[in-house]
């Protein structure tokens, strides 16, 4: 048992410590929201399986037999059907097991759902959640690992969140299902087995607010998803040498610049971590906005870490060098401050197998 202070209550109450996985947190949010709102249904390949959608829809078919739809391999068709159902009052969750599969439905997501309310002059909401898995795992290769985050950030009319922890996954999905707009939840596959203490009851996390994970005075680190996970790990490596402020950007559409600007004003330094290719990514957008802000005086050039501008290959001999690691992040920070670098080789497991750590 652990003492947890509930936000709205003034008296502390006892809540059981409840550590669950990222995938379980998504499942729980879905289950609870389906219980609360009969308009919510879920559709996607294999979502009705006992351990459906990598565990994120496990058991839902037996709880809600009429509202969980396995479907033909027809992404454009079933995504469009869900968008149409949303326009007409339901609140679908559409699941795509890889971002590449969702591209077959790009028209429905980007050109139909995202535009509908605007192009008809308002008053025509499209309440829908696109849960889209972003691959990163050994052996997935060029066509199953594209980290196309920025693509979704680029389209006005979508709200785009990237949960970085089990708690965020639950809270953001709940918010997404209470929102009247198309919300894209980009889920880094790499994080599915990380664990955290997640409240049992329904709670929501704002869709448009960055979260300060750790306060600090000397440098602002902005990251999301699996990059944020590595950035968290790098904190321990850097220790007290550098006083880091770590920000989980959470939403890339819209981006919470208020939080970021405030932080960079204080620290005067900025490091962005992306787990996507270097060109046109979240970090480049954040750095551009910071650079344009006249009230921010940077003490050193902003730094961007990301993957190289090539597809992610399959062989682990090559993917070993693909994603920025906790050591890369730590060293980028240390070199900004001209401190001695860390020389640590990561094990095969650390490099290639998805983490199972429990985070705070």
């Amino acid at each position, binding site marked *: 048992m652990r003492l947890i202070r509930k936000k709205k209550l003034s008296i502390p109450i006892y809540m059981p410590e409840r550590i669950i996985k990222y995938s379980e947190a998504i499942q729980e949010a879905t289950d609870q929201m389906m219980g609360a709102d009969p308009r919510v249904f879920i559709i996607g390949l294999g979502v009705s*399986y006992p351990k459906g959608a990598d565990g994120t829809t496990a058991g839902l078919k037996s709880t809600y037999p009429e509202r969980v739809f396995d479907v033909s391999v027809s992404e454009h068709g079933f995504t469009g059907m869900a968008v149409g159902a949303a326009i007409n009052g339901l609140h679908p969750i559409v699941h795509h097991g890889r971002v590449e599969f969702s591209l*077959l439905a790009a028209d429905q997501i980007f050109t139909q759902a995202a535009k509908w309310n605007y192009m008809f002059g308002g008053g025509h909401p499209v309440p829908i959640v696109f849960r889209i898995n972003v691959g990163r795992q050994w*052996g997935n290769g060029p066509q199953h690992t594209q980290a196309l985050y920025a693509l979704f950030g680029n389209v006005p009319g979508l709200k785009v969140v990237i949960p970085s922890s089990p708690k965020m996954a639950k809270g953001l999905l709940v918010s997404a299902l209470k929102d009247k707009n198309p919300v894209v939840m980009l889920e880094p596959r790499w994080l599915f087995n990380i664990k955290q203490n997640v409240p049992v009851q329904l709670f929501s996390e704002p869709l448009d607010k960055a979260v300060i994970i750790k306060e600090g005075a000397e440098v602002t680190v902005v990251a999301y998803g699996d990059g944020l996970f590595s950035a968290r790990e790098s904190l321990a490596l850097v220790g007290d040498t550098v006083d880091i402020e770590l920000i989980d950007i959470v939403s890339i559409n819209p981006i919470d610049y208020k939080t970021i600007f405030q932080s960079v004003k204080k620290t005067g330094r900025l490091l962005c971590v992306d787990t996507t290719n270097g060109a046109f990514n979240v970090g480049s957008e954040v750095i551009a906005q910071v650079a344009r802000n006249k009230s921010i005086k940077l003490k050193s050039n902003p730094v961007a870490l990301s993957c190289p501008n090539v597809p992610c290959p*399959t062989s*682990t001999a090559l993917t070993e060098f693909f994603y920025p690691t906790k050591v890369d992040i730590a060293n980028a920070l240390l070199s900004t401050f001209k401190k001695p670098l860390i020389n640590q080789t990561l094990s095969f497991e650390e490099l290639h197998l998805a983490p199972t750590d429990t985070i705070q």
Partner: protein
Amino acid sequence: MFLIRFTEQALVELYLKHKIMSFVHFYVGQEAVAVGVCNNLRKEDRVLGNHRSHGHYLAKGGDLRAMISELLGKEGGSSKGKGGSMHMIDTSVNFIGSTPILGSVVPLASGAAFEQKYNKRKDITAVFFGDGAFEEGVVYETLNLSALFALPLLFVVENNLYSVNSTLKERRSANHNVEKIVTGFGVTYLKADGNDYEDVFEKARMLTKGIRAGAGPAVLECMTYRHMAHSAPIFDDAAGYRQEDPLERRLERDPIKKVRRSLLESGIPENTLVTLEEKIRTSVAESIQCAVDAPYPKKETLYTNLYA
């Protein structure tokens, strides 16, 4: 067929020993389809495949060692370790490529056939894909296009009754009729017993003959079973979803057993067959050893090959 089966059996062992760091979709049980079709193709004919293409690749004559090296992520792999199991290629035998985005390879195959027609070649193209991929809209667009342009294209649908763990019943209405759909596009349709090499061979022979003669595209739907789990080196009967194709039925209709039986019946002595099988197993074992010993790609190659 024996080569495909023995290779994958050896790969299962290797996979279980955790040496394969690449998604693997085993073809065990479906060998008669690839071989029955490809034995009607010439070297110049083209083949494209999907995520489950070890069999298509080997049946077209793809290099065994390069394939295994690719699965192991080695420098000498057919894609230098960049592709892995879901991306087979050997253009020296006109195996044009395979990709795991369902349906995507079908219009690409029509492009290969388009080129053949455009340049007045006498060759044809065959594309292998599953019953799941057959539900993607682009396949229907391509049926129409290929009929419109009278392309020399054979669509080979490997209907193993499942898309991952979803049965046909969960994905199609009871009135779904493939033959009516296909012929409605003006495309020829035949259905074969995909567990029976001779039936596949015979029907593929008829269709490829027509295609070569300029009759336009055709669909060959082969009813078959995938013996193993969707993408793991295991038999998943215990998981309980195999309602359509229980183990006994699969084993009884195993295409390898059937071919073996008819070879024996045709008068080939048992020991000749055993010697042949041993020879294949040895060559597979040698290729695996060779791939295991081969070097991994160098870091610099991460950045190469982006542009031609």
